[in-house]
């Protein structure tokens, strides 16, 4: 796969990039591939060209979990990079590592910047802050899941492309219609079932994922994923899978390929996947994340996914100053605006969001504001601030295994959700 070759090229880039003179080199470990990897390289290059004191060296470290592991291993070997990109579910792990990381608010101060929380989008900042409000990591790429659909297939099946399905019920019905009409072999697929169909499903429909405000208020969390609304949802999904209307692509973003190749008519995927969708050249449309028609108060708000940049502790003042400068560079309105327009990730500052609005970008690109409005539209409730568990990666693993058993027809939806709750609760108790 391209990942291996990317690792190689990343390593090469890291070893061959020689600083011209006495610059402070700062390594930036990341997990971006494809179009998003190009953005990382461009940003580093622009920052390096803009001044002479620091050099940011991006190093590709594999998938999100692989990057997190590389960081942990580096910490244990006392060979940490300056900056590491950690995905949303790794946030709990990093927060638990007090002393290993330096809060971003302090890093910005090292670069002579007064950290002002109100400059950043509240939903995103809240997710990456301690309960007392200190921002711990820099939100680099925040995304929220949206619905992509293939306009050509919709037209072939005689479905209106101007009003994409809004509820899950409509998505499932449309998917069946498409399969029956023969316009596509597969009606619907989804990346990241755990993130989209559980974490965001709960927030968007304003139902609890677990106790203790989904883990934001305390670590002694009990999962509540076997409530009827989840069971019904997965029962329907399993039935679609049985009929070949829904196709499972894998645990992370593999299913995107099924959409890009034109096999599946609809896809739920991170807004950050937009770069690849645009690159593929298919005639696509965007809708907001579907919600459950039976949920009261839905749609509520989605929760941010993606990743943030963490800074390791124990570095020199010079390095912190450089990292602070780089974060200042990243926060610039024009950089954020470009990042947002190019990659589909959300702008992290209010100013960048306003600037994008003013530029008329959203009028020209309908649907591109969707991931922001669906996250920012309403004041978050205790069900929709986010999910934070000390071992969320492990919980997702359990959920994925159960989903695979369900979609293969080995067990029913009730058993699946009961198992997730039982095994998940055991794992959470163990990780205390």
């Amino acid at each position: 796969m391209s990942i291996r070759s990317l690792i190689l090229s990343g390593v090469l880039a890291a070893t061959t990039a020689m600083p011209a003179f006495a610059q402070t080199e700062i390594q930036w470990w990341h997990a971006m591939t494809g179009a998003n990897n190009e953005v990382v390289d461009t940003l580093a290059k622009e920052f390096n060209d803009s001044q002479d004191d620091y050099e940011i060296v991006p190093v590709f470290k594999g998938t999100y979990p692989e990057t997190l592991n590389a960081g942990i291993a580096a910490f244990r070997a006392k060979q940490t990079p300056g900056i590491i990109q950690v995905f949303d579910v790794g946030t709990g792990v990093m927060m638990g590592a007090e002393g290993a990381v330096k809060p971003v608010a302090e890093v910005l101060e090292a670069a002579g910047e007064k950290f002002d929380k109100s400059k950043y989008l509240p939903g995103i900042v809240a997710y990456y802050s301690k309960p007392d409000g200190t921002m711990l990591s820099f939100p680099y790429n925040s995304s929220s899941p949206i619905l992509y659909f293939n306009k050509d297939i919709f037209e072939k099946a005689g479905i209106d492309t101007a009003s994409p399905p809004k509820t899950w019920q409509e998505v499932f019905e449309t998917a069946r219609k498409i399969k029956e009409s023969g316009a596509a072999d597969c009606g619907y697929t989804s990346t990241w079932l755990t993130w989209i169909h559980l974490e965001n499903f709960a927030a968007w429909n304003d139902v609890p994922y677990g106790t203790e405000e989904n883990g934001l208020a305390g670590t002694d969390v009990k999962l509540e994923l076997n409530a009827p609304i989840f069971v019904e949802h997965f029962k329907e999904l399993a039935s679609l899978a049985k009929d070949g209307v829904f196709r499972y692509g894998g645990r992370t973003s593999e299913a995107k390929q099924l959409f890009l190749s034109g096999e599946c008519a609809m896809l739920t995927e991170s807004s950050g996947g937009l770069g690849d969708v645009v690159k593929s050249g298919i005639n696509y449309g965007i809708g907001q994340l579907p919600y459950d028609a039976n949920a009261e108060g839905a749609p509520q708000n989605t929760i941010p996914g993606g990743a943030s940049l963490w800074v390791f502790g124990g570095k020199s003042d010079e390095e912190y100053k450089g990292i602070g400068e780089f974060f200042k560079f990243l926060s610039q309105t024009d950089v954020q605006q470009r990042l947002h327009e190019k990659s589909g990730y959300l702008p992290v500052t209010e100013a960048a969001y306003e600037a994008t609005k003013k530029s008329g970008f959203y009028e020209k690109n309908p649907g591109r504001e969707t991931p922001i409005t669906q996250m920012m539209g309403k004041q978050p409730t205790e069900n929709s601030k986010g999910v934070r568990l000390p071992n969320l990666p492990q919980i997702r693993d359990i959920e994925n295994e159960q989903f695979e058993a369900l979609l293969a027809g080995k067990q029913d939806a009730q058993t699946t959700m009961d198992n997730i709750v039982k095994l998940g609760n055991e794992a959470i108790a163990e990780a205390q």
Partner: protein
Amino acid sequence: MQKAVFPNRVLPYLLLAPQVAITIVFFYWPASQALYQSMLKEDPFGLKSKFVGLQNFTQVLGNPDYLNSVRVTVVFSVSTAVLAMALALFLATAAEKVVRGKGFYRTMLIWPYAVAPAVAGLLFLFMFNPSMGTFAYLLRDAGYRWNPLLDGDQAMLLVVVAAAWKQISYNFLFFVAALQSVPRSLIEAAAIDGASSTKRFWTIVFPLIAPTTFFLLVVNTVYAFFDTFGIIDAVTGGGPAQATQTLVYKVYNDGFVNLDLGGSAAQSVILMAIVIALTAIQFRYVEKRVHYA
């Protein structure tokens, strides 16, 4: 036997030293670290750790997932070893019969061995992945429900075939050499006595190449146990629903994805014990039945 006496008492130790140093650094030291880690409960960053004795072991052994992983490993290893050896033996006997272009066929058959496990895995992934695989499309067009992402048996089949494919060349090489060492005169004598070629193979050739078969059995089992991580990681990632999660893969997954270092270390210690036991059994009992010419 004459006792060899070296005039220099230090030199032999000096000559041995590099080998001993390598063994200590790359085997004993990590092994002792694993042993130590297996009795600790620790957060991923190693900031807080607590001695818990054998608690990690009781937890691992009482976990149904672990027992499932044992079953998966047995099925995977036996299938891979049997498939790789049977096909290699078949190809080797066939290659023996070829009169013209023997060298060419042999070279072609040895090639796959140069492929790294992860690359072999990716080759099969590209051929059979339901989202992008060429063969996956063909199978689906033929009306076969091919989906190793959800069907555990299909996923197992896929990793077994990929793992065996890579090992066939190695086995082939050894079988060819073994077949060449079988004395012509024995086979010719049997032919004169009227034994059919099948009979000649099973009563003369097969017993005579038994030492090689035994050697390959050991090598293939070890290979299936330890060297197939790359294939499993690339093709199935242990899924679906743990259907291809071998013991080695579980050590990696629990330690490096789920960040449970104590549990993962306990598993690797158990694995170490299993391998020591397996090797001992193979050499003590199975080897006795092997006829060395």
